[in-house]
């Protein structure tokens, strides 16, 4: 058996830890089932209401045990090992990274998994099968239950793996234990959102504003109309069958399946991310191909969630690439030694080594630049001819290129700013410095400008602009400016350009002094 798994199992698996949550879960489930004695106004079978109650009771208790307690367990396994200094023994073992990851992720949460797999999941399956009224089932009930259960299991794995990844990340940044635990708050919030989406979707499968006289009302029947997902208002009541398909790009997919797929994607990348960061902790130095693939697949996959073409091609990918770039830049900017090693490898023409030390923000920036080039080439192909035969770009296509270029320039500006903050010796807490910088650049300055000069002037601090409504023409309608688009454009790019120049100059100064400091 995996020794890391066995070690954690020995540490965590005690009769009390196993029995206490189990008793609470069973009591909760029992209470959920017996507390419902009457049917609702929808006039569905009693089992439907009992199943609904059981589902919510189980999910509430399950959330506390699997997400809150489970997240704490799988992260404290790292923080405690580090604080009690036993981490080195694990680092020194020749165990493979995957065995360590599996052992920690599932070993530390073994009580949770035992209860979930042997009790929680059967209860959930029972609850959902009762909750879904037979007459409404648009597809085989077992498929829906399987999809929901898969979603729940993936949701637990994704939350634990994401928490594991986050804490390992804070460990790499040498942040204190309190910071590592504080990082769990956003993890749990994100997890709650996805858990809520899962529940909402299973709810959508079953909720039916129903009246017994609906059948054959005005000639409408379940089979003919309601199952198509249409809504009807009859005598002031809404009759709706909310189980609707959704889009992933142009593919039709049931909403529940879509959210399960999304959670599976997050779970997959959380595990891969944890694996890679664990390898880094164990002194492996890998080439950054995984990050490159993630930079491409994450925006590509997640953009498909949106139903808007503009969001799919501009807002989602650009936002995501930019955020990922800034995250890795904040992680890497302070690692001067890694930069030094990278530059030395390039000078020595040791290309493999150089690739291993290539900053991930640079990979992200290159992907962003490639996307800009793609839009630059692709968007004009979407051009249309106007009547007199003159070739003309649609405004929106021009706007796409413009948006991508702005994001690229903003990224460059932020990369320079991050490095100045991290390399400036007087700034003792550079991570806080980065947060302050982002607040000033993207919140405080726009708000001030907004207050002083009007609605759209805030964007003139070189804020990335995505909304089509904020097209160049609209921005320049601000009281600060006249309606001359050319002038506005010039002012916008002058501000952004001068910011890049100033940051570039400051960066160069600090780079020299940092290099001198290191040579001493």
């Amino acid at each position, binding site marked *: 058996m995996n020794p890391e798994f066995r070690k954690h199992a020995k540490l965590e698996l005690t009769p009390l830890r196993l029995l206490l949550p189990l008793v609470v879960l069973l009591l909760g489930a029992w209470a959920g089932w017996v507390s419902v004695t009457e049917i609702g106004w929808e006039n569905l079978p009693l089992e439907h209401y009992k199943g609904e109650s059981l589902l919510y009771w189980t999910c509430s208790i399950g959330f506390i045990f699997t997400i809150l307690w489970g997240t704490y367990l799988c992260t404290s396994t790292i923080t405690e090992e580090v604080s009690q*200094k*036993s981490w080195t023994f694990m680092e020194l073992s020749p165990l493979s990274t995957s065995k360590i990851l599996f052992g920690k992720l599932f070993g530390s949460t073994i009580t949770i998994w035992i209860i979930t797999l042997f009790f929680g999941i059967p209860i959930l399956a029972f609850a959902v099968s009762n909750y879904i009224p037979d007459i409404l089932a648009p597809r085989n009930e077992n498929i829906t239950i399987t999809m929901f259960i898969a979603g729940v299991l993936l949701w637990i794995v994704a939350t634990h793996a994401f928490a594991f990844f986050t804490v390992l990340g804070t460990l790499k940044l040498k942040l204190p234990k309190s910071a590592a635990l504080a990082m769990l708050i956003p993890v749990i919030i994100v997890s709650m959102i996805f858990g809520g989406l899962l529940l909402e979707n299973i709810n959508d499968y079953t909720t039916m504003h129903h009246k017994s006289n609906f059948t054959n009302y005005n000639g409408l029947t379940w089979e003919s109309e309601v199952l198509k997902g249409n809504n009807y208002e009859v005598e002031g009541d809404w009759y709706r069958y909310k189980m609707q398909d959704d889009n992933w790009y142009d593919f039709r997919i049931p909403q529940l399946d879509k959210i399960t797929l999304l959670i599976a994607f997050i779970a997959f990348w959380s595990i891969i991310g944890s694996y890679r960061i664990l390898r880094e902790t164990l002194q492996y130095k890998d080439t950054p191909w995984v990050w490159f693939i993630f930079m491409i697949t994450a925006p590509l996959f997640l953009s498909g969630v949106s139903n808007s073409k503009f969001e799919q091609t501009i807002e989602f990918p650009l936002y995501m690439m930019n955020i990922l770039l800034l995250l890795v830049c904040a992680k890497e900017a302070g690692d001067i030694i890694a930069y030094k090693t990278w530059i*030395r490898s390039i000078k020595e023409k040791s290309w493999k080594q150089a690739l291993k030390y290539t900053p991930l923000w640079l990979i992200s920036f290159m992907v962003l630049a490639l996307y800009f080039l793609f839009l630059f080439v692709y968007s004009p192909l979407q051009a249309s001819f106007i009547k007199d035969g003159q070739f003309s770009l649609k405004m929106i296509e021009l706007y796409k290129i413009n948006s991508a270029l702005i994001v690229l320039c903003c990224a460059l500006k932020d990369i320079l700013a991050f490095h100045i903050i991290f390399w400036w010796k007087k700034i003792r807490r550079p991570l806080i410095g980065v947060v302050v910088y982002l607040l000033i650049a993207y919140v405080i300055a726009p708000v001030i400008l907004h207050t002083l000069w009007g609605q759209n002037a805030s964007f003139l601090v070189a804020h990335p602009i995505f909304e089509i409504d904020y097209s160049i023409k609209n921005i320049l309608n601000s009281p600060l400016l006249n309606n001359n688009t050319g002038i506005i454009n010039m002012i916008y790019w002058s501000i952004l350009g001068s910011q890049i120049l100033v940051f570039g100059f400051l960066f160069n100064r600090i780079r020299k002094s940092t290099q001198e400091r290191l040579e001493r």
Partner: protein
Amino acid sequence: MSQNAITVSSLNYYYPDKKALENITIQIPKGEITALVGPNGAGKSTLMRCLAGLDSPFSGEISICGIDIINNPRQGHSKLGYLSDDFGLYEELTVKDVLEYMAGCHELPIKDSVDTVIKRLKIESVQDKKCGALSRGWKQRVGIAMAVIHMPEVLILDEPASGLDPEARSELSTILKDLQKEGMTILVSSHILSELEEYSTAMLVLRDGKIKDHITLEQQKALTSISSVHIGLSSPVTPAQKIHLENLSQDKKISVTENRHTVTIQHKNEPEQLNILLKSLLDENIPVCSFTPSQSTLQTLYLEIAQTDKNQDK
């Protein structure tokens, strides 16, 4: 096949604000117990962590029994054991549990290897106790047992004696000598030089991230073949006796205390030579009432190197 267990060449390690290790090049032959000594902040722990593959240096090469530890740290861990100065055990697990864990990590037959290491480290009496309930001395033993369960060829110990009582220190010394007899190469750092003297066969002096000296046992013996002999006299030394004593001293000099009752001379410290010296003193009717040869120690040797280094810096 290389006879060196540890080979380090041109190793550089940087912290963001300073060079922690600079151009370190060392070879440690198999079977040696090498004492790594140096003042606080000299880079001892950093060097040891690099050797153990726990930190990646900026440049240079490290080979442990022929394995490139920088590029294959996990592979190297099958050949080495390491115990840091501030290591911790899994407080809630028993001694046997943690040893089983380590045996499992190294893919060893669990029962056999655990029983063997328990016997070797003589920890039978605490094997079923929880690690959190052990004293510092026992924890140290268990820590070493975890580090050597796979019988590594190289053992690296960072300040293993810190916090141990004299009895535990003595036992540690015995353990290290036993492990050396089994063929293990040991690199051990400590501030307590007198205890290193008991078992080390070589000394590596690190200062300001640079290797200042690497002395083997043979060199050490040669350096310590001359020692000071303190001669106590029942009556103050006379001028004639003083001349005779000066002639007996290796450097033809003696030092006399203020009351002229104690004379210190430099002399070879081999037993036969000391016997001849004593006879000569008695033949000359020098009123000897005590005779104390004081051997040059690792500590004095280290202090001499440190002093020379300081003088060079000036």
